[in-house]
């Protein structure tokens, strides 16, 4: 496994399965009354969040704490951090404090890559979402959730719908699900597809009703209503009609097909409340699984050799 986790492309099939299997073990262990493992005792994990993301930050915090790491959370949002010099200075500060791992969320694509390769810090860098680039742990928790419901992903069909152009979740999911052998179809209006998407390892469709029948899962991406002001689509109503997931469309999935959403949802925009709260929805499970997967990532990247059971004793 690479030293850092910057992109889902960093993970081989073996790496990904190792993370998912470890996450499953950890899920079992932490299912007890005492949720804590001593594994990362004495190690320092820094949450470096240049962008608001309460759920991802809390998820990483919980993961690190359950492994007994010392957790420092640095929220740069709201401080005067807006220029890159601050990324460097912040990194140097964290390095001086002896961070073993830095979990970074940043509005600029590639910022975690810069942190990992600039020589500013020595520790492990984990990408917790960078600009419109990637969000690999989100893809891992999605894969974990899919696996729980569908078993092995080889040959499974997953439809990803929404603002692919601006979505780091979509990029990471396409890469990881492809690595795991699933067949991914991206669905969006052509304005929200990136140039060159035809070279990605997936199918592309502009028609949701055509893509959904028989699919094993559908993942709805958040679509910001502001995109309409930049003429990506005419109105949010038209978007919902063409690309929103309602009960009728959810019914096109395979019988045991499930509905995912990375959150936060725009109920009524990309997904109706009935579907979000309906029987196919695994959206709340995704949040729980996020902690397990992030524990597994920290566990494996911080180079802990012991198996979780032994460490737990």
């Amino acid at each position, binding site marked *: 496994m690479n030293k850092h986790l910057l992109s889902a492309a960093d993970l081989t099939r073996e790496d990904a399965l190792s993370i998912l299997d470890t996450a499953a073990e950890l899920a079992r262990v932490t299912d007890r009354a005492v949720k804590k493992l001593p594994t990362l005792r004495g190690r320092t994990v820094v949450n470096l969040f240049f962008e608001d993301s309460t759920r991802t930050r809390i998820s990483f915090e919980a993961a690190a704490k359950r492994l007994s790491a010392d957790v420092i959370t640095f929220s740069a949002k709201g401080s005067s951090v807006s*220029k*890159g*010099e601050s*990324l*460097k200075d912040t990194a140097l500060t964290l390095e001086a404090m002896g961070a073993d791992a830095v979990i970074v969320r*940043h*509005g*600029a*694509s*590639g*910022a975690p*890559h*810069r942190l990992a*390769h*600039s020589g500013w810090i020595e520790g492990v860098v984990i990408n917790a979402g*960078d*600009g*419109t*680039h*990637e969000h690999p742990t989100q893809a891992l928790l999605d894969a974990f959730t899919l696996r729980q419901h569908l078993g092995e992903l080889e040959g499974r069909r997953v439809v990803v719908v929404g603002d692919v152009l601006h979505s*780091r979740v979509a*990029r990471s999911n396409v890469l990881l699900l492809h690595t795991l052998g699933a067949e991914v179809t991206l669905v969006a209006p052509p304005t929200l597809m*990136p*140039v*060159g*998407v035809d*070279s*990605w390892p997936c199918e592309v469709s502009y028609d949701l009703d055509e893509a959904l029948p028989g699919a094993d899962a559908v993942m709805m991406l958040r679509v910001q209503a502001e995109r309409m002001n930049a003429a990506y689509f005419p109105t949010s109503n038209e978007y919902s009609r063409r690309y929103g997931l309602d009960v009728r469309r959810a019914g096109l999935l395979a019988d045991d097909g499930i509905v995912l959403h990375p959150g936060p949802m725009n109920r009524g925009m990309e997904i109706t409340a009935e579907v979000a709260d309906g029987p196919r929805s695994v959206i709340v499970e995704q949040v729980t699984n996020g902690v397990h997967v992030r524990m597994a990532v920290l566990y494996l990247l911080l180079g802990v050799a012991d198996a979780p059971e032994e460490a737990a004793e």
Partner: protein
Amino acid sequence: MITVLRDVRPYGEDAVDITWSEGVITGISPTGASAPPQGARVLDGRGLIVLPGFVDLHTHLREPGREDAETIASGTAAAALGGFTAVHAMANTTPVADTAGVVEQVWRRGVEAGYCDVHPVGAVTVGLQGERLAELGAMADSAARVRVFSDDGVCVSDPVLMRRALEYVKAFDGVIAQHAQDPRLTEGAQMNESALSGVLGLRGWPAVAEEAIIARDLLLAQHVGSRVHICHLSTRGSVDIVRWAKERGVDVTAEVTPHHLILTEELARTYDPRYKVNPPLRTADDVEAVRAGLEDGTIDAVATDHAPHAREDKDCEWAAGAFGMLGLETAFPVVVETMVVPGRLDWRAVADRMSVRPARIGRLADQGRPLAVGEPAHLVVVDPDAVWDVDPSRSPSRSANTPFLGRQMRGAVVHTVLRGRPTVVDGVLA
């Protein structure tokens, strides 16, 4: 003082001795035909090639305003080391070079520094705001005698304003040098728009944003009978459009930067802003197209777009990084590697693209002249086979943002002579 450059090959042809005095070439004779006059200064040119001094149409010297990144003295020293005897200083300084006062100041500071001639480029619009014309005539009539006008850094995107500018400068034989970039198509753009920008999650700068403005401006120039110059053309489509316009007799000239001749968008994979530039590095296919354009003369000039930036403006994440890269000291070796070694340009053609045509575009009467008796002694003496490592710590430039850091270059400037006075001898500032 009489100076003799001995045993040097003009345009790579037969070796001669070149003598000059008072800044004017006074003799060219076969090597060793006569001994140097008593008391003459002698420069050794053995094994070397002499060309007319290079002329850069596109240089950012940052003074006034960003003297932390570059000054007229430091930038022109780098220019001399790169073989240039004249540079055009772009107008996007603080204050903007949009009045006679600012352009005269820049011009005078160039004379004081003495490393190479500095010809200020005047802003087309007041403050580069794209709203109303700057006093172009006043700049033309000033001591700086401005002939090239550009809002470089931003595009003159308003078609009416562009038309008026093209027409207006005809009164004093000026030219508008357009930074071709449709602003709406490139809002927030970070790199070439391509499959790679999609993968990297960096907002794309599509080729059409350059090509559409070039096409519009060529048609405008044709309509009003003006000449127009295209800055840093970077795409295959742009080359095709300029070639088409030249065939139709439009009075257009175009330049390409050294970095667009050799580097591609693949470097964005590093997310290192060292490789962030505007227009962005394009694809290998575009690189081949601009080389072909320079070879067949569709592209008239190599222009550096030397763009120094302070350390902190590059030592950051990609999105926060400034656009631009150094170019003066590496332009010649890039041309050697991409054009001379593959046999696409001979030495006369190198002189044409790096000296003769840029001087003509800038209406510089005493630059880009032939190597002949009676002509001004603006010379560059080069060793096309010398190999050297790029090391910004050895450069007089105040900035270090070269895209060729740690790279080995082939082709070196040995001597540079400005108006008969050596500014560089044996690769060192004189």
